[in-house]
């Protein structure tokens, strides 16, 4: 089971909101697909809840990307920055 982060260092960063916007998926659609309440997706996006490994894997599978592309212990660079870095 996941938990609420106790400090900034404990926080899990994610790209769920960006991926949702990119794929045109609402919180409710994602929540239904991964088996949680929509509010829980909101808490994960806001960094107020660190999901369990199972939930993190289900979210990554939903977007069809590796889990480390969605979640990170370090702040994630924006997708445009990462794309630029890979193409230069």
């Amino acid at each position: 089971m996941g938990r609420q982060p106790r400090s900034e260092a404990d926080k899990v960063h994610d790209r769920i909101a960006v991926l949702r916007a990119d794929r045109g998926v609402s919180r409710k659609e994602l929540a239904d697909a991964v088996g949680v309440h929509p509010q829980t997706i909101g808490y994960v996006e806001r960094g107020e809840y660190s999901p369990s490994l199972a939930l993190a894997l289900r979210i990554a599978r939903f977007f069809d990307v590796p889990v480390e592309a969605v979640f990170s212990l370090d702040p994630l660079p924006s997708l445009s920055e990462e794309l630029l870095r890979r193409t230069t």
Partner: protein
Amino acid sequence: MSTSPEQTYLARAFDDGRYDWARARRIRRRVVVAQVVLLTGLVAAVVAAATTDDGWPGWFFIAWTVGLLVFIPLHSVLNLGIRGVFDRSDRSLDEHQQTLRERSFLAMAWPATALHFLAWTGAVTVVATSGHVAPALCWGFLLWFAAGLTAYWHLAWTAPDEPADLC
């Protein structure tokens, strides 16, 4: 196997969007304060009743009845504010809701134990000092009841505001 929380009738009622107003932290905290004030007032009334000759004066009966009746809508609002996570089956809760519930249970374990202890010792003291059984039972009931509510109060007080939209 499905991983989705089961949508029981109770879960659907607690998740109903018509009650979003009750889920604002400001409302939840006000209801907690109202419940604590109400129960404290009833405890004070019990103590006052225990000091009377018959131990069950008419004004106390009215205060007790009104107090418990007022408690019903207050607790309904509180429960809607926390989506009834303490009253629903585990199967209807997702991992975050279960985490919130367990966190509040753990945080309030000692205060609840202290209130249970106070319920028993207080009831025995009331009987021993006044000889009245009815106010002793009321005292015991109120503190036992409050002990059960501490986890509700903790969650309602500490839970963050929910994400505003589902988009």
